[in-house]
């Protein structure tokens, strides 16, 4: 394993030593419950609120609008459910609008709201790159729209959506707009005001932070039905004793991810474009999925003609390269990814998908070696 090269940073990242260092004291030294009256509790509360304020600053929202959660999936669930239920109760709004390329955390929640709770689900069209055209959003909005959710940077195909433009359209009609920014927050400058976003989902482990922690950022929205009830934590919106060390880790990782973005992205996009260019040039029957330029700087994704994507991952792993596919399946019964199908890719072709995502340790040499291993693997598989 130690000799394997990791190219799956969109799946998860290692916790950076700087992040780990700031987390450590909060496991056993400063361990108080931030809800407690005594000084142990007060110290914990102080660092919790400092972390909240750091995250709020990065998102350009008041710190009390930051709700810590267990990760991106919970944030997505909370945003969709919390907003849908609350808006239906207050205004009778019972329509949900999402794109067809959402992460499952959004789409499956929306489907449950439709199937079990009687909401109407409307799906936005996307172009061949999986991008939403803001004008089509306008067409779907009605007085009954409870929430609009469009993924910021796509986890499978890397495409970045025109979030600010969609946000402006929703804002004109006073409709809450949510975006899953779990991938994007690791690479793109976040600003909820600039993007006219009312709700944003962030997870720490895609940006060198720990797993099991994330946040839901709110802007000019107060009516959100709590999904997890209990104590009064998180402004009565999300009950449960806060996980201080993880939250500290999230705040640090988010802060670091939002610094030196340009410099890092220049390096990433150079490697990404080299990878894309070499693969499309050297491997026949290969096709880039997602937008060629408006994509996450560390993200390259493909489909290969006549290839079983899961077998390809095994071949690459055996050669020492860890990648991912849109139909990742560990039990040998892959089905084509809904995201790729939404782009108009044929099901057989969609089964041959590959996602390569770069990280801080990726080098040009590794990229070149990966392309060579990929070309050889595909050649063998096609024999």
């Amino acid at each position, binding site marked *: 394993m130690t*000799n*394997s090269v990791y190219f799956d940073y969109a799946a998860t990242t290692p916790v950076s030593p700087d992040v780990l260092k700031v987390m450590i004291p909060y496991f056993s030294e400063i361990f108080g419950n931030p809800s407690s009256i005594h000084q142990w509790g007060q110290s914990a509360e102080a660092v919790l609120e400092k972390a909240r304020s750091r995250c709020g600053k990065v998102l350009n929202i008041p710190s009390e609008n930051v709700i810590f959660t267990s990760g991106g999936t919970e944030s997505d669930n909370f945003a969709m459910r919390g907003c849908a239920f609350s808006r239906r109760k207050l205004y009778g709004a019972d329509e949900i609008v999402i794109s067809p390329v959402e992460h499952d955390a959004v789409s499956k929640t929306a489907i449950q709201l439709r199937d079990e709770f009687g909401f109407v689900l409307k799906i936005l069209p996307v172009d061949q790159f999986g991008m939403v055209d803001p004008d089509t959003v306008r067409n779907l909005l009605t007085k009954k729209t409870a929430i609009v959710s469009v993924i910021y940077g796509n986890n499978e195909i890397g495409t970045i959506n025109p979030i600010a433009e969609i946000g402006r359209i929703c804002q004109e009609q006073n409709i809450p707009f949510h975006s899953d920014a779990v991938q994007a927050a690791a690479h793109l400058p976040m600003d909820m005001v600039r993007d006219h976003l009312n709700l944003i989902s962030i997870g720490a482990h895609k940006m060198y932070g720990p797993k099991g922690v994330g946040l839901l950022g709110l802007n000019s929205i107060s009516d959100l039905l709590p999904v997890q009830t209990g104590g009064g934590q998180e402004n009565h919106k999300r009950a449960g004793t806060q996980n201080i060390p993880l939250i500290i880790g999230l705040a640090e990782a988010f802060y670091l991810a939002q610094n030196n973005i340009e410099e890092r992205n220049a390096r990433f996009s150079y490697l990404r474009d080299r990878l894309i260019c070499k693969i499309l040039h050297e491997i026949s029957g290969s096709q880039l999925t997602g937008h060629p330029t408006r994509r996450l700087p560390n993200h390259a994704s493909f489909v290969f003609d006549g290839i*079983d994507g*899961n*077998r390809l991952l*095994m*071949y690459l*792993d*055996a*050669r*020492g390269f860890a990648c991912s596919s849109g139909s990742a399946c*560990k*039990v*040998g*019964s*892959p089905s084509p990814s809904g995201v790729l199908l939404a782009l108009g890719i044929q099901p057989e072709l969609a089964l041959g998908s590959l996602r390569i995502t770069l990280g801080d340790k990726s080098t040009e040499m590794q990229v070149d070696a990966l392309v060579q291993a990929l070309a050889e*693997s595909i050649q*063998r*598989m096609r024999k």
Partner: protein
Amino acid sequence: MKAGLKEKVVVGMSGGVDSSVAALLLKQQGYDVTGIMLRLWTEPGKECENSCCTPEAMTAARRVASMLEIPFYVIDARDLFRKEIVEFFFDGYRSGITPNPCVRCNQVIRWGFFLQETQNLGASYLATGHYARLEQGRDGRIILKKGLDEGKDQSYVLSGLTQEQLRATILPIGDLEKRVVRDIARNFNLPTAEKKDSQDLCFLAGDDYRHFLRRMVPEILEPGPIVDVNGKKLGEHTGLPEYTIGQRKGLGAIQEPYYVLRKEIETNSLVIGKKEELGSDTFFIETMNWISDISTSFPEKAEVKIRYKAPAVPASISLRGNGAICVKFDNKIRDITPGQQAVLYDGDVCLGGGIISQVAYK
């Protein structure tokens, strides 16, 4: 990756105790081991009951792999298995014979597609948890021998393999007894130690093959006459595939103890008779797969198994035109069934095997 210090072996893992211990032994012997499970076809809706690639079997194999610190993957071979094995199964019954899909699966799937995959992955060998032994003879040929645990011997299902396939194979538990295999698994706390032996015909998922045929290919079950050896009609059968040779029960309204003697595909008749009419002393193998070398000395005597669990019975072997062989026993043997694999042995050594193409009746 590591430089080629260790030879790479892929172990076909089923989530059972045998393949788990096979992987463990290879790891101990210093090989660079990778575990792979083949996802095979199961009738839609019965995926959870297939004996070797259920979610539980997969979890078990994954746990063993992680304990052994070896990589583990699952390869989707469902379409290929459906096309090559399940269709073969249907075709066999359609043509009036009783096919053996396990022998075929080993030839085409495990030591065909899968062996190719392991070689593509850079492995020198494919290893499995079969109870059989491989040795290299002085002439360089690979000798296939029965497993040391004769009660568990699986050389029968490997008798269709070629020298080239056997040369790329390791059978790590062939010289162990089943109870020793279980002991090893227990000693290493492998979660598969107490797993029950799998039954054959994995894709039936424990169901009766007759029900399976009725659901999948009802058109091959065509009712026809039940006749005696003189052609006298005694009743109606519900479709030849539903009967096995030697079967006594289920022959309809016929009162006396009658047995299925054979099937006559041309007239779609089921020939039945008295117990003393059962059996034959001669059958033919049209295409014989010789594992041993017959160019220098042809084995005129051999012990022959006509089914997986049948005893090996001495017989005379003679070569016919076109490479077909004739097997003649001293006495009549019951239930020789066209379509089943007949396997020839010289003591422990498996000489080869082939599908019974024709049975001679006097």
